[in-house]
């Protein structure tokens, strides 16, 4: 799609409006049906009477929606950065070992330290994701050329395989760990309240802010390393910084919600389709598109599953798989 700068800017405004609408849906709709006036009353009456409707609105839905926005944005941007820096259209946080590292650390917390509860897993998952990223990067950095995209992909796959085999070996023998991990591993926004939101929000906000500044560098890398170098870019440094940023964004998001698939993979392609190949636009587009997709999927899971809920990871897999097939089928979309 050929678009001019004002058109792209207008697109961003439209996306903002859509995100606001979806966020409104996410607060007003859910597995419990609450009349709109009651929701508005709860929102307008923050310190007021505690009723179940106000508790559900303010303590369940609002933090969940905010977390969905932040985590979604982080995963979308992390995916876009990774696809740019590795020049691999199939890259997402999973290939950097983030999910495997986080899962391994959660299992470690359950089996060895006997710790339970999403609130504590967050920090173990974060640490695991960070450690796995460092490991992947340092393995890929060995040798003369440094961390090339191919070596990163290989090292990511190797570390992921290694961590997953250890994780499976442990959960095969420990039913408790299996049960805990089973829930964590689907990816969900349920049961995450204010403490988790305030815990990860600073990391996510910082990461999102920094990521907006790396569009130019990614544009340079997209032309190939030699060209980028010719343009005066310090390729190794850019790559390392981008990886640190992805670890921060995807690590914090994964820690809070569990591994959420497809968002990081699919959304950057949608963004590219809408705004063209310039990363200075792809990044903000991804940042707005991803939470729209994530929140919509979450709302669908909550309304469709009532009186229970479907985990957002499940809904996303169902929704995004066809989109992904479309991307593969009409490859132009990726190379636009």
């Amino acid at each position: 799609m050929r678009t001019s700068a004002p058109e792209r800017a207008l697109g961003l405004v439209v996306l903002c409006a859509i995100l606001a609408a979806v966020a409104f849906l996410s607060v007003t709709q859910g597995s419990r049906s609450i009349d709109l006036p009651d929701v508005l009353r709860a929102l307008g009456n923050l310190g007021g009477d505690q009723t179940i409707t106000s508790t559900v609105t303010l303590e369940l839905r609002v933090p969940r929606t905010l977390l969905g926005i932040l985590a979604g944005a982080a995963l979308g941007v992390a995916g876009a950065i990774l696809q740019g820096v590795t020049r691999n259209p199939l890259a997402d946080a999973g290939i950097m070992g983030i999910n495997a590292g986080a899962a391994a650390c959660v299992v470690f917390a359950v089996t060895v330290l006997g710790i339970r509860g999403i609130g504590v897993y967050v920090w173990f998952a974060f640490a695991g994701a960070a450690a796995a990223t460092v490991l992947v990067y340092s393995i890929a950095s060995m040798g003369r050329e440094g961390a090339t995209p191919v070596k990163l992909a290989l090292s990511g796959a190797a570390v992921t395989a290694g961590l997953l085999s250890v994780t499976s070996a442990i959960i095969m023998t420990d039913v408790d760990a299996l049960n805990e991990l089973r829930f964590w591993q689907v990816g969900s926004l349920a049961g995450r309240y204010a403490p988790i939101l305030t815990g990860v929000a600073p990391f996510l906000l910082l990461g999102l802010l920094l990521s907006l500044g790396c569009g130019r560098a990614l544009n340079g890398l997209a032309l190939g390393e030699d060209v980028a170098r010719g343009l005066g870019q310090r390729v190794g440094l850019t790559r390392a910084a981008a990886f640190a940023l992805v670890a921060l964004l995807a690590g914090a998001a994964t820690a809070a919600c569990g591994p959420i698939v497809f968002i990081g993979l699919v959304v950057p392609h949608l963004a590219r389709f809408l705004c063209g190949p310039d990363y200075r636009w792809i990044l903000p587009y991804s940042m707005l598109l991803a939470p729209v997709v994530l929140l919509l999927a979450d709302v669908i899971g909550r309304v469709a599953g009532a009186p229970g809920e479907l985990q957002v990871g499940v809904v996303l897999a169902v929704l995004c798989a066809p989109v992904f097939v479309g991307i593969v089928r009409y490859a132009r979309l990726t190379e636009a």
Partner: protein
Amino acid sequence: MHTWRSILAVATVGVLLAGCGGGTDEPDTPAAAGPWSFKSGNGETVTAEKTPTRIIAHAGEAAALMSFGIRPVGIYADEPVKTDANLKNLDLAGITILGEEWGKIDVEKAASLAPDLIVGDWWPVEKAYSGLEEGVDEKSKKLTELAPIVGVTQGESIADLAEGYEALAKSLGAKVDDPKIAENKQRYEKAVAAFKAATAAKPNLTAAGMSPTDEKVYVANPRYAPELLDFQRWGLKVMNPATPDADFPYWETLSWENADKYQPDLILWDGRAYKDTLNAEFGRKQPTWFEVKAAKAGAVVSWPAYWLHTYGDFATELEKLTTAINGADENIGS
């Protein structure tokens, strides 16, 4: 003749070891007689020329037999015997453990025990014996080729289950009237009477089997929880959830937004997860948990979910529940 003597020797050593270990004083395994027959849960009558003595049993069923003084030679369990609710307090010295994970039975080891009877609950819905259901390792199913298999029907009542194993143990030669053995049943009968009296005194008291987790709240469907059906029969109004999950009707799953859908006066908390501190913990971390009034009032008690097999264990659990019912307020949930 030789094998027979070695079997006796093994049995004696087992009993001696048991005596040394926990001091539980299991009476001697009775000597074989015959012929023997037992009508199993699937309706078939199994017969043998001699009364079986070398028994391999599934976890809870083994505990049931042992409570009547019948000591199996091998046990297969669905989890480590150290944590299995039925086995963790028993002295298992001398008994070969053939599996500690659902679906995985070491059949080769089982064969080396030369069993003459396998004992497992019969599951009428699954149409299979414990540990041999759909989904287990195919190799595990070969256990049935070693010896005939019998069991009591699961599903409707723990009282019936315990009675069934009493009958099986009796057929295997247990002296069920031995004062030490009968003591459990007497305690159980007393516990049932006390439970009935407690519920009769509070005719409006409602209860619900619940299991809150980080992501969801589960409400138990008594139809698939034999002990909850027993409680209902004995006068406790255990709530039947309106829309049990279609794919797994043991529970109705509620999102945390809907945690207050049921308002019992007393929460029967899934005993596999229960800890005294959990209710307060969930009140702290789940904003809507205390919207369940009984939770807010602390009216929670552990419910022995899906594992009971013996009069003794049932009596102990009933006594705890009776205390909770006596202390409960009929009007919390309403």
